[in-house]
C-alpha cells in the first residue's frame, strides 16, 4: 500500500472515531457509556505501552507504575487544589519525571531487554508495597491522605478548566476521555512521521547501526520511554476521573499483564492494534464478570498463550495482511485478465492477417 493510501485510511479511521465518540451518548444508556469511558481511558494506557514497545522496542513489564503514579498524582493534587486543571498536569509531570529518572538509570547502564523487564516489574512491586503501607495519618500530602490499602475515596472528578464549580457530567467525561484517546493517537501518528519518530524506529530496528550513523540510542530510547510514561500518567488521571477513586491495586501485576495481552492480541508495532485489543479484552472481561461461570484469569491466560504461539503478529496486522493480499489478488487477476486479452488479440491478429 502506498503512503498516500495508508494516510487516507488513517485519516478516515480518525474521522469515523470522532463521529463515533460524538454520537455515542445518543445510542447507549448511562451505564454503558460509563463502561466505554473506562475502556477508553484504559485504551490510552494501551497506546502508551504500544508506542514504547512497538516503536521504541522497550518492553516494559511495569507500565502500570506510571499509570498508578499518574492516578495518585492526580488524586493528591485534585484534593489539595480543588481544581482538576493543575491536577491533570501533575498526572503527566510526575510520571514523566519518574520515567526520566528510571530511564536514565536503565538506558545509560546499557541494560538489556530481559533486565529491563525485571527492573520495571520490580519497580511496580515496590510502588505497590509502598502505597499499600501508607495507611497511617503521617502519610498525608497537604490535605490528601494516601489511605494505604484502602486507597483514596471521593477524589474530585474533572471540572471545566479553571472552574472548580463546573463539574463534568458523565457524558462530558466521555467526550473528554474519547477525545483524549483520539488526540493521543493522532499525536503519536504525527510523531512517528517526524524526524524523531523515524529515528526512534531506526533505533528499534538496529541499535548498532543507528549509533554508527551518529545517533545516540540511549537518548532516543530515554525520550520514548518518558513520553510513554507521560501518556500512561494521563491515562491514570482519566481513570480516576471515571471512578473517583484510586488504590494501590492500580499497581497490581495483573493489570500490567493485561496491558501486554491487549497489545499481543491487537498487534505489536501498530497504534490501532493496542486500542482494538484493549476494547475487545475489556468487553470480554466485563461479560465474564457478569456471568461468573468462568474465571477471567483462565480466559485471559489462554488467550495470551494462544496468541503468542499461533498468532504472534496479533489481529490488526494479520487482518491487514489478509486484506492487502486479497487486494493484490484482485489486482493481479485484473492485470492477468487484461494481459490474456492482449495475448488473444496478438495471437488473433496473424490469423486474421492470413
Amino acid at each position: 500500500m502506498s503512503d498516500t493510501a495508508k494516510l487516507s485510511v488513517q485519516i478516515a479511521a480518525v474521522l469515523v472515531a470522532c463521529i463515533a465518540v460524538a454520537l455515542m451518548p445518543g445510542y447507549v444508556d448511562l451505564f454503558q457509556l460509563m463502561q466505554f469511558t473506562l475502556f477508553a481511558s484504559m485504551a490510552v494506557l494501551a497506546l502508551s505501552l504500544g508506542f514504547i514497545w512497538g516503536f521504541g522496542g522497550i518492553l516494559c513489564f511495569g507500565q502500570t507504575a506510571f499509570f498508578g503514579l499518574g492516578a495518585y498524582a492526580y488524586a493528591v493534587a485534585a484534593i489539595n487544589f480543588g481544581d482538576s486543571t493543575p491536577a491533570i498536569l501533575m498526572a503527566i509531570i510526575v510520571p514523566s519525571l519518574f520515567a526520566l529518572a528510571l530511564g536514565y538509570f536503565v538506558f545509560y547502564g546499557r541494560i538489556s531487554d530481559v533486565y529491563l523487564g525485571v527492573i520495571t516489574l520490580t519497580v511496580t512491586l515496590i510502588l505497590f508495597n509502598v502505597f499499600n503501607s501508607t495507611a497511617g495519618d503521617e502519610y498525608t500530602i497537604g490535605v490528601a491522605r494516601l489511605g494505604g490499602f484502602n486507597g483514596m475515596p471521593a477524589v474530585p472528578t474533572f471540572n471545566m478548566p479553571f472552574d472548580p464549580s463546573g463539574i463534568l457530567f458523565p457524558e462530558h467525561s466521555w467526550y473528554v476521555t474519547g477525545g483524549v484517546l483520539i488526540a493521543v493517537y493522532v499525536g503519536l501518528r504525527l510523531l512517528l512521521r517526524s524526524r524523531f519518530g523515524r529515528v526512534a524506529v531506526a533505533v528499534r530496528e538496529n541499535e548498532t547501526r543507528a549509533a554508527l550513523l551518529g545517533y545516540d540510542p540511549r537518548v532516543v530510547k530515554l525520550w520514548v520511554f518518558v513520553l510513554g510514561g507521560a501518556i500512561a500518567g494521563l491515562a491514570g488521571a482519566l481513570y480516576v476521573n471515571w471512578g473517583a477513586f484510586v488504590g494501590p491495586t492500580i499497581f497490581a501485576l495483573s493489570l500490567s499483564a493485561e496491558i501486554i495481552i491487549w497489545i499481543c492480541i491487537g498487534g505489536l508495532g501498530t497504534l490501532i492494534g493496542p486500542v482494538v485489543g484493549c476494547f475487545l479484552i475489556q468487553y470480554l472481561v466485563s461479560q465474564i464478570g457478569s456471568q461468573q461461570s468462568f474465571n477471567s484469569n483462565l480466559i485471559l491466560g489462554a488467550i495470551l498463550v494462544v496468541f503468542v504461539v499461533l498468532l504472534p503478529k496479533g489481529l490488526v496486522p494479520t487482518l491487514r495482511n489478509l486484506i492487502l493480499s486479497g487486494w493484490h489478488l484482485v489486482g493481479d487477476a485484473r492485470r492477468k485478465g487484461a494481459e490474456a486479452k492482449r495475448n488473444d488479440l496478438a495471437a488473433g491478429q496473424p490469423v486474421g492477417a492470413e
Partner: protein
Amino acid sequence: MDLAALLALNVINGAASLFLLCLGLAIIFGMMRIINLAHGEFVMLGAYAAVLSANAGVNIWIAMLVVAPLFVGLVGLLVERCLVRFLYGRLVDSMLATWGLSLLIIGIVTTIFGNTMQGVPTPLGGFSIGDYRTSWYTLFLLAVAIVMMAIVYAVLRYTRYGLIARAVMQNPDMAAVLGVNPTHVYMATFSLGAAVTGLAGGVLAPVSGITPVMGGAYVAKAFITVVGGGAAIISGTLSASGLFGFVNQLGAYFTTPVYGEVILFLSAIVLIRLLPQGISGRFFKGTV
C-alpha cells in the same frame, strides 16, 4: 545476645527460603535461557499438591517431599511439550507465553478450589532462644536447602546427564553431533527445574497462606534473585539469595516487613545495574 542469635537465624532462614524458591528458576534460566514467568504458579501448585494430599491422609513429609515435586515435575513436562518447546530462542515470546500460562494456572486452580484453602499446621513444634521462641521448621528449611544444593551440584557436576546438559546448553548443534538428542535434554531440564520448584512449594506450604495467587509474591523475588545471581546455577543463586535474604531480613527488622521487601527490590535493581552479568558473571566465572 539472644536477639542477635534470633536475627541470625532469621537471616539464614530468609536466605534458605529464597534459595529454595529460586533454584528451579535458576536451573531453567541458566541452562535453557528461558524465563519462566509461571514460576510462582509452579510454587503454588507444589503447595496445593502437598496440602491436598496431606489433607487426604498422606503423611505430611511424603506429601511435601515426594508428592509435590513429582506432581509439579509432571506439570513441567506437560508444559515443556505443549508450550515451551515452540519458544526456544525467542526470549521475549517465552516470557509472554509463560506469563499467559501463569494466569491460566491461577484461573484453573481458582475455578476448582475457590479463592482460599485450609492450610496444614507447621510440623515439628518450636524451641526457645532465651526469651524468644522460634520453630524447628526453620532449621528444617535450612537443611532442605543444603541438601537440594548438594544434590543439584552433584547431578550437574558428576553425572552423565549433567555433563550432557551443560554441553547442550553451551552448543546444541555440537551435542547433536555427539549423538545426544537436545530435545530430550531440554525436556528433562525443564521438568527437573519444575520438580525442584514444586518441592520448594511443598516445604513452604506449612508456613505460607495457601491461595491461587500466592505465586505472585514469589515470582518477582525469584526472578530478580536469579538475574542478580547470573548464569551460574549454584554459586550465582547461592550468593544472590544469601545477599538478598540478608538485606531483606535486616531491613525488615529495622523498619517493617513491607520496607524489608522494598529494600530487597531496590538493592536488586542497583545490583543489576552495577553487575549486568550478575554476581556469578563477575566473581565466579566458569562455576556451576
